[in-house]
């Protein structure tokens, strides 16, 4: 359960290597990220910039913009640059390091997968400034809620080095959110965009199917 502790530290704002470096002033810029106390408050719609003349591309939308979004269970208000990816916002500003980079931002590996408004998406190809009002779930959040998919991945050894695992877990969780009883074919299909260089592929379908069974048991108990 070390995964949970690590994730919990980030969420609670405890000392992690990353926050230490940041607090110690080693990061050049002060991150403009403010967790918002009142969770559940709907963000005000951001007013689209006025369709003015050429100025529209010079001032009203050239600089940083504020986005308010829910990440796991926390609300954040962040100042983002137009050319920042969601992955950059999550890792470098909010401090959630589970969205990885493997393919270099081509959209070819699935390692940076997060769940955005219920859809598993590639955070490396999502603009942070387009996430105003969005609900984002990362592997940290999935671990914090003690989702059965985490234990299933451990039980079925569905990883070796673990680098691609957060992406797999997010994709699998998004599948389980819409399909309570996936077949092996469903799992293979849903995980088709996640690559694993350790080649643990055959362990994933039984792990996700076991997590689905556990979720169904949870539901029947409650």
């Amino acid at each position, binding site marked *: 359960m070390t995964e949970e502790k690590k994730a919990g530290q980030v969420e609670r704002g405890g000392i992690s290597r990353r926050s230490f470096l940041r607090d110690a002033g080693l990061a050049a810029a002060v991150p403009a990220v403010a967790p918002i106390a009142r969770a559940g408050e709907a963000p005000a719609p*951001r007013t*689209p*910039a006025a*369709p003015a*003349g*050429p100025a*529209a*591309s*010079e001032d*009203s*939308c*050239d600089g940083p*913009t504020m986005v308010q979004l829910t990440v796991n269970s926390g609300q954040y208000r962040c100042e983002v*640059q*137009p*050319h920042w*990816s969601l*992955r*950059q916002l999550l890792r470098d500003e909010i401090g959630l390091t589970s969205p990885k*980079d493997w393919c*270099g*931002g*081509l*959209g*070819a590996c*699935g390692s940076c*997968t997060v769940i955005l408004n219920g*859809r*598993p*998406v*590639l955070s*490396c*190809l*999502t*603009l942070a*400034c*387009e996430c105003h009002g969005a609900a984002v779930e990362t592997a940290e959040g999935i671990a914090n809620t003690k989702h059965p998919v985490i234990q299933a991945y451990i039980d079925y050894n569905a990883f070796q080095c673990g680098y691609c695992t957060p992406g797999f877990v997010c*994709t699998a969780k998004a599948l389980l959110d819409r399909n309570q009883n996936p077949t092996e074919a469903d799992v293979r*299909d*849903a*995980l*088709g*965009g996640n*690559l694993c260089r350790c080649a643990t592929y055959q362990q994933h379908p039984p792990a996700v199917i076991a997590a689905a069974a556990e979720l169904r048991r949870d539901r029947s108990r409650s």
Partner: protein
Amino acid sequence: MKTWKRFAHIDVGSVEQAADLLRRGNAALIAGGTDLLGGMRFEILPDYPELIVNLKTIPGLDYIREEGGGLRIGALTRLEDIARSATVRSRWTALADAAHRTATPHIREMGTIGGNICQLNRCWYFRIPDNRFHCVRKGGKTCYAMAGDNRYHSIFGALKSCLAVNPSDTAPALVALGASIRTNRRLVEAEKFWDMRVPGSTVLEPGEIVTAIEIPAPPAGAKSAFLKFAIRKSIDFPIVNCAVMVAGGEARVCLNAVHNRPWRATASEDVVRGKAIDEALADAAGAAAVAKALALPGDRNKWKIQIARTLVKRALLASA
């Protein structure tokens, strides 16, 4: 990870506003962003957009509706929603299958049908990072694939000196199903929608934006199918794909990734016209589809001819 160079970004509330911004200068439209942002990150084009115009904030462009027996799909509809739609699958099967075989689940959750049909062509010289080959599609004078490694390139010759192939999976399905593309200015038959532009892949004019796909009701008893050849089941672009619709002795057959634009195989359609499709007839139709195909000098892409022939045959048998 390579980060993007700076650009400005604007959310727009209407197609007119987006069109207006497009006409003013160096701006690019973003819907799902999977083609645009990858290309920008690696600076494949000589021009880098100064402004990204976000279409996703325009209301009312994300829908799948049956209208008067036909199908209408909003340009911002995600490919995954099309793949999962029972409506699309029921009567426009080739499109549901094509959407489902596109890229990866993640890219289908992000990518839209409008973006899929407007994506730039595939060619590793055209798409190489940092614009290292200033090819004809970027306004240069040379097609580097002509004398280079062209194993994935056109088997039906160049279009305006460019050998890059159109990689869309949904495009051949739209052609086979007789779809039209609705823009903010006109309605274009799918078959006439693609062209070789610098650097675009469609006949869209500056300030013209796709708003919907319109597909007529299939004829009574119609069946359609989509098949794709790629190395992996997921992720890969097609090496060749093929969509077919068969109804009442008539067939519409369209290949893609074999030419600069989707390639309607009218020769195959002539072979099967008025006849019951069996193995021998489908085989003859496959042969007719590639009768005019020509491997490039060196025969590196010759293998694609056999694949195209076989896909036409199998897709016809699947729709018979």
